[in-house]
């Protein structure tokens, strides 16, 4: 990068927080997505909104790409600097500014770790439900930008349902404030909702405000083991049809059970065809009643074992296993390519079976797990990114999986975002009119395409395949 520009950046953040050594550039060349890596020109770590604004003014003046980044735990290559430029790492802005107990809101900087907000609000009896699998390391800024989901989405919703106010820096350096503490607010376009899930392509989020709910009184967890997939899927449908909305209803297929057990050693039978991890929260009596009903439904649909967690330790062990499913898979093969196709929950069994057949057809290994209650599946392909021939087959298999999900009325990504990895498929889902509206929004915010270029909008669209079930 031009040394005058570096000098300008250094004068904003100080020499310690503008990095351009080969080692530092390498360390910001990736996120948690396999197969995407590219060196930026510089890495800048601002400490305030004003610094972010000043950095954006420099970038705007020189038309330099800026890639906002949190902890780099994203799974769609959203924070990989594919078009070079400046990585804007927001980790130093990590203060929780306010927990307003009267209005039940929390205000925080973007670099706050998701789990730290959980701890802070739960200490005063409040609750921030979104709990993405990476919450121990992910930042709230990243969660907002990607529209992160989590295990509790079915009952409580996801990040977009909780963010009610934002401060963000526009590409030209102007500071936008939108939303706030009002429970009702229809003043103007809902810019907050527009920015949540915009993947760093419209503005840099410098402050967030979330609404909070009361911390549920109790929680009960149950685990049901099934001989096969369809019996588990039928249980999910019947539980919901019985007007029970559990806080989580996590699903794992057999290959997933095997790798999780290998890592977490919590006594899961590795021969089970599928398992459901169900959790209900709320008043003690409601939890008991709902868990008992869910257990009964699972047994009726063919579950060969239904266990209720006896204490907090057992419950934590079961939930930990689910949370670490993704990375536990890395023990089998070096690379795990994790997708998050989502279908209306009535189609889960069809979708999972299709994934299994497709894996077989292309001779690849896919473990499928996910949030059964909300239809958000995580087919994870265990492979080795160094094997190019296998990579080719995997791409073809995922083409079919995406196409089939759309045929079932599903969508490409439930919570990871489009980023770079799904950009070539975006038009399949959005259609030409949707793409056109999106492009016009992008231009209105970012006329020179300097914010996170190469994300959301791909160079070209993959040719859509048609599959028969």
């Amino acid at each position, binding site marked *: 990068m031009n040394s005058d520009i570096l000098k300008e950046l250094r004068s904003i953040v100080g020499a310690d927080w503008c*990095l351009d*050594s*080969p*080692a*530092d550039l*390498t*360390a*910001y*060349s*990736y*996120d*948690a997505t*396999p197969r995407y890596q590219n060196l930026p020109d510089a*890495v800048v*770590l601002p400490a305030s909104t004003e610094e972010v604004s000043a950095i954006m003014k420099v970038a705007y003046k020189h038309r330099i790409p800026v890639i906002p980044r949190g*902890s*780099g*735990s994203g799974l769609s290559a959203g924070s990989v600097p594919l078009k070079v430029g400046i990585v804007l*790492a927001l*980790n*130093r802005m990590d203060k929780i500014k306010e927990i307003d107990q009267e209005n039940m809101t929390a205000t925080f900087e973007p670099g706050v*770790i998701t*789990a730290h907000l959980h701890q802070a609000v739960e200490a005063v009896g409040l609750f921030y439900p979104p709990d993405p699998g*990476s919450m*121990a*390391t*992910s930042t709230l800024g990243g969660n907002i930008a990607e529209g992160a989901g989590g295990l509790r989405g079915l009952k409580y919703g996801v990040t977009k349902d909780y963010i009610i106010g934002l401060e963000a820096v526009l590409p030209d350096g102007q500071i936008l404030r939108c939303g706030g503490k009002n429970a009702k607010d229809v003043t103007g376009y809902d810019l907050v909702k527009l920015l949540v899930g915009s993947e760093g392509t419209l503005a840099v989020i410098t402050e967030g405000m979330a609404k909070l709910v009361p911390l549920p009184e109790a929680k009960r967890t149950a685990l049901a083991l099934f001989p096969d997939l369809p019996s588990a899927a039928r249980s999910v449908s019947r539980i919901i049809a019985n007007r029970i909305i559990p806080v989580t209803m996590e699903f794992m297929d057999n290959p997933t059970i095997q790798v999780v057990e290998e*890592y977490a050693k919590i006594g899961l039978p590795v021969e089970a065809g599928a398992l459901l991890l169900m959790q209900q929260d709320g008043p003690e009596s409601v939890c008991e009643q709902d868990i008992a009903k869910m257990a009964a439904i699972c047994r009726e649909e063919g579950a060969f074992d239904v266990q209720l967690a006896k204490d907090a330790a057992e419950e934590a062990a079961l939930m930990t296993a689910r949370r*670490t499913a*993704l*990375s*536990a898979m*890395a*023990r089998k093969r*070096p*690379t*795990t390519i994790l997708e998050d196709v989502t279908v209306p929950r009535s189609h889960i069994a069809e979708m999972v079976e299709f994934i299994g057949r497709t894996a077989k057809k292309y001779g690849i290994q896919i473990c499928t797990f996910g949030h059964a209650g909300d239809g958000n599946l995580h087919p994870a392909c265990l492979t*080795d*990114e*160094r094997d190019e021939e296998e990579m080719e087959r995997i791409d073809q298999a995922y083409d079919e999986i995406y196409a089939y999900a759309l045929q079932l009325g599903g969508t490409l990504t439930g919570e990871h975002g489009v980023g770079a990895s799904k950009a070539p498929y975006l038009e399949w889902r959005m259609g030409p009119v949707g793409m056109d509206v999106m492009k016009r929004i992008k231009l209105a915010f970012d006329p020179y395409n300097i914010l996170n270029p190469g994300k959301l909008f791909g160079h070209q669209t993959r040719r859509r395949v048609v599959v028969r079930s």
Partner: protein
Amino acid sequence: MSANLAPQLMLDEDALYKCAHCGFCLPACPTYRLKKVESATPRGRISLLRAVQSGNLEIEQIADQLDLCLGCRACETACPSGVPYGEILEQGRAALTKVRPLPPIYRFAYNRILGTPGGIKFAGWALWFYQVSGLRWLARRFNLVERLVNQGLAGMERAVPDVPSPIRRSRRPKVYHPKGKPKLKIAFFTGCVSEIVFPETNDNAMKVLAAAGCEVVVVPGQGCCGAVHSHAGEHDVALEQAKRNIAAFEQVEYDYIVNAAGGCGAALREYGRMLADDPEWAERARRFSDACRDFSELLATLDPLPLRPVRGTFTYQDSCHLRNGQKVTAQPRQLLRSIPGAHFVELPEADRCCGSAGTYAITHPEVSDSILHDKVERLKGTGADTLVVANPPCHLEMIEGVQRAGLAGQIQVRHIADVLAEALDPQGN
């Protein structure tokens, strides 16, 4: 082979590619908490080593990042993918040492003093002489250690307790006998820093094991475990240590090899892996490593110790390598809770490094001090009057921290073996 290619060949590509770069290690990493940049994370260092391995970076370009790591291996406990970070770091440092040898003074201290049984013995005597001859008085009076070396070593020097004289050292029995028929035969590993600075902790550990019904032998001819060498990239010297110890322990009969130093224990348990490709040593090393147990780990499997009531509030700081390397966490806590009359409280973030990290407190005094400061703040909050440790370098570091905070009169820092030895009931069986 060109000199530049050598580092690439020393790195295990498969180990590097085990990392899924999920980032779960970030919150566990003490240097990331302090520096807030990705190159100060385990994931960052692995990505840098991958870049070296694939030829995109030279090993010298990542020297600072490799040096900065404490080697606490908290990332391994946080890692869901089983990435052998400790091994990867050692390979990286060994590759770095090939092109950037250690300064001669470190080589001398590591290889000639800590690296030979005679050197360890000599250092113990020399330390005693330094303390009683007036040299210590002189050094402290004129602040010589800080002036000649740095504040890191000076702080450590102030923390070193009075050590026993050579005559008292020579009075250690060769075998510690239990009261009745021995339940187990233990070969005791004494270590280097332990033996130089805390020989009485080793004595106490053996006394406690004897009180628990074990016959304990101090194996002659043993030396340093080699951890200090592995961590500094002196791989070949580390292997020498391993072979010396394996050969020495083959001279006696034992059920277990026990040590009271979390860092040493983790290194001893690595011998099997380190020598796996050496046909002469592989099987012998595996047998040695399989027999290794930490002091607390073994005690927890035996009948309860005969203890008398002790007053006081204890808290416990994990040894990183005992926790993350040997996965021993519950046993020392369980033993402390078993002391009648005493009160045990958890130290918040006991699982995080104290900043000692072997020789790190000397090589990176500022980072180390900052971590230690945090640790002492949390310690104050517990209200404990005794901080219990399980590894000699942590022991020294925490004494230093407590001294510096002006708490030396209020909080004692003691090894778990010393605490248990004092609590032993002389009438008990």
